[in-house]
């Protein structure tokens, strides 16, 4: 076999076909995931079975075109029936989908076993796809041997790209706010059915090549991964597409190492990439969120220590503040210990023997903090009928979160805060 771009032609076409599937799936999946309809691919890829069987019964051949057409009709029927049952019989959408696709699948199995049992419709190929052998079934196009599935898929791919580019604005509004779309005069139903039609066409064209399981994975995993990484629709689309390509390359190469089915391995890779995003996404990742919590805890604990030291010195207490007493007052535990260490390292607090004392810069920082605390107390006292001994604890929380803007606004309302909590607490 010859080579394409310096790669073995079969390897090239496996990766290229899968990349096309993944990118198309990622583009369509973005909108499905946003509109909470991710499972449509699962439903359609199962429900095409009676369409395939009917096409075979009518034409009595296994030619690809009638088969694809039958599958497409069955796929669109799934979408339509789900929608009708949901709307007119008042059944929740997921239940409607479940009823429709499983019933159609059962019908398909019965049709195949009754009428076409002599045809070799291997259930395995429906699930895993036949990517490896599909790369061998080629047509000659412009002097190059191109696999037939790649031709069909590139048509769907192009149609999807054109659709997303042309209807970008409509898709965006319909995905986030269908009511607004309707009031703006955008036909939400038309966009919906165009999207559904493309999903059906994609599912049918792709599942022949890569099997239903990868179709389901590709309609969800890249988009769900991108959803964790960004809040902007255009970035989400691009990240999803890039994830799709990455899955194709990694999936094929890892599968080659372990001699495993490419489609199955690709969905495992997709799951792995998604888990990476779940853990390490910059904003919504579990690690990032945990770190932000720790950082916030340290800041609050440190500010509590500063405030405590300030009030201690302000009260003119004879005995000096002990480190252990301060730690206990700041909540104790590892967090306040680390917070104390950080304050000492930043030169805000010094420890001599067992007593702790504010430095000059520490005192300045602490005075601003206590100022914020007393500002809030004065504000509450002025505007809410709270008894004086109820003012401290809300202010204690608020002092950590008052930004300069809010502080200025409060200062305008209470110019001279004489906090009721002058004494150290």
């Amino acid at each position, binding site marked *: 076999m010859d080579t394409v771009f310096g790669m073995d032609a079969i390897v090239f076409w496996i990766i290229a076909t899968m990349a096309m599937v993944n990118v198309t799936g990622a583009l369509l999946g973005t909108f499905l995931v946003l509109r909470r309809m991710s499972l449509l691919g699962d439903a359609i890829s199962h429900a095409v079975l009676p369409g395939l069987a009917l096409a075979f019964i009518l034409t009595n051949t296994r030619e690809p075109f009638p088969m694809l057409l039958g599958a497409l009709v069955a796929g669109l029927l799934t979408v339509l029936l789900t929608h009708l049952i949901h709307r007119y019989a008042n059944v929740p959408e997921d239940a409607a989908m479940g009823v429709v696709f499983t*019933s159609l699948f*059962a019908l398909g199995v019965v049709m195949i076993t009754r009428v076409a049992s002599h045809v070799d419709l291997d259930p395995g190929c429906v699930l895993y796809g036949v990517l490896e052998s599909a790369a061998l079934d080629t047509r000659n196009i412009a002097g190059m041997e191109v696999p037939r599935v790649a031709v069909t898929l590139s048509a769907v791919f192009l149609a999807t790209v054109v659709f997303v580019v042309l209807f970008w604005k409509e898709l965006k509004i319909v995905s986030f706010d269908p009511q607004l779309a309707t009031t703006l005069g955008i036909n939400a139903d038309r966009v919906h059915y165009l999207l559904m039609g493309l999903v059906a066409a994609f599912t049918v064209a792709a599942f022949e090549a890569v099997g239903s399981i990868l179709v389901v994975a590709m309609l969800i995993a890249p988009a769900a991964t991108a959803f964790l990484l960004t809040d902007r629709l255009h970035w989400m689309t691009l990240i999803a597409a890039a994830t799709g390509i990455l899955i194709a390359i990694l999936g094929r190469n890892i599968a080659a190492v372990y001699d495993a089915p490419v489609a*199955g391995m690709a969905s495992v890779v997709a799951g792995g990439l998604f888990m990476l995003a779940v853990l390490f996404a910059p904003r919504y990742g579990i690690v990032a969120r945990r770190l932000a919590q720790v950082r916030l805890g340290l800041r609050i604990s440190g500010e509590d220590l500063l405030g405590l030291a300030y009030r201690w010195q302000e009260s003119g207490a004879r005995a000096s503040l002990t480190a252990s007493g301060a730690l206990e007052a700041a909540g104790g535990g590892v967090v306040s210990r680390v917070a104390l260490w950080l304050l000492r390292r930043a030169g805000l607090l010094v420890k001599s023997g067992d007593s702790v004392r504010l430095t000059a810069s520490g005192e300045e920082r602490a005075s601003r903090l206590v100022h914020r605390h007393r500002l809030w107390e004065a504000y509450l006292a002025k505007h809410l009928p709270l008894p004086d001994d109820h003012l401290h604890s809300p202010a204690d929380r608020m002092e950590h979160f008052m930004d300069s803007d809010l502080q200025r606004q409060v200062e305008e309302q209470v110019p001279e805060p004489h906090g009721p909590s002058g004494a150290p607490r």
Partner: protein
Amino acid sequence: MSGPAPWLAVLALATLQAVLFALVGADRLLGWVQAACASAGLPYNTVMVLAGSGLLGICSAVIGSYAVLRRRSLFGDAVAHAALPGIALAYLIARERHFFSLLMGALISGVLGAMVITWLRQSTRTRQDAAIGLVLSVFFGLGIVLTSAVQRDPSGAHAGLEGFLLGKTAGLISQDLLLIAVTSANILLLVWLFQKEFLLLSFDPGFAAVQRWPVPALDILMMTLLVAATVIGLPAVGVVLMAAMLIIPGVAARFWTDRLAALLPLSGVIGLGSAIAGTYVSSIREGMPTGPVIVLAAAAVCLFSMFAAPRRGIAAGVLRRLRMQERVARQNLLRSLYELVEEAPDSAVTAEDVAGKRSWGVADALKLLRRAEARGEVRRTTDGRWTLTDLGLQRALDVVRAHRLWELYLVEQASIAADHVDRDADELEHILPPEMLHQLEDRLKQKGRWPEDRVPASVHPLEGVAGEGR
């Protein structure tokens, strides 16, 4: 919480069963069943298959109904797919097709999949549908990778793993069927023991949590029961159709009732009926696969319910809408006639007058007039014009009263301009209940806005009525 009683009962039942099995053993138990069948003259194999598939049908329908109610219909689909890696792994460890260990593998990876879905939904920004789809496809992809390793196994004892994908009732031996029947019975028993807890969990988990019920534990229990039902169904009907056994009976039963206490038995009966029908049909017709026929039977029941159910069915809805349309048209006709002849109660109008007033076609107006004539509300005068009968006048007065009351109310209370109220009142007059009319009347009387005669004058000029306000 209703105390630890249900949990203790579970423990006692499990111990009892374990002791029973240890003392008697599956083979001797099956022997007894065989002897009982022989003495009753029943075919042993058929009895076993019917018992297995029937119990499976009931238990998947019942536990699936909860999933449908909790908007988790496709949970079962995901779990069924997620069981595959467990099956393959169990095979790779045990190196033989040992039914029980394969099911245990399926159970473990199924529960794991269910927990991953819950975890993704609760602690990341992934929504439920995407979480379900991810678990479904990734676990199943892993299953395919592992299965391909199984198939390369040189001992070649992997036959039967494929059966878990598509299901094969005929491939089950009586020990397998016994296991299916016993597990189903246990699941049903647990659902019965925990019915109060599951009821609250399905409808108001927040309230359950506030009442200090162990909501996460109950959720995991319900999930485990769903996975267990799915797992024992896999070898019989396969991955996809198992989802159908869970969803369809619940959806079908939901059309007939709004009460969980009725929904569960009803869906159980539908599950049992379709399981038995499917098993029967596939046993008498050569080449009819059992699983799909069971599902198609359930789908037929669902389709029938969808159209024919008395209140929630489509036919009932269409009928309701037609009746409403009929009523609205009738009332509109009566009010138009009244308003046309308001000043002179004994005068008569033509069909063209009526049509002009309501922007109806003349033919439609004539049709409505003839129907009203049949009800005795209008009659034709000698010169071919129409006039209200006494009965018609009575009914028209009621309609006009409702319309004008609502108009007055809108003008008085909602400060809507008099020329805007006609259309609003036009929509509401047909559905105002009598109590509301009385309330309106009282309020307007208190403000001295309600004239002593039955119908107040219109607040706006009447369209199509000659000589009024023009």
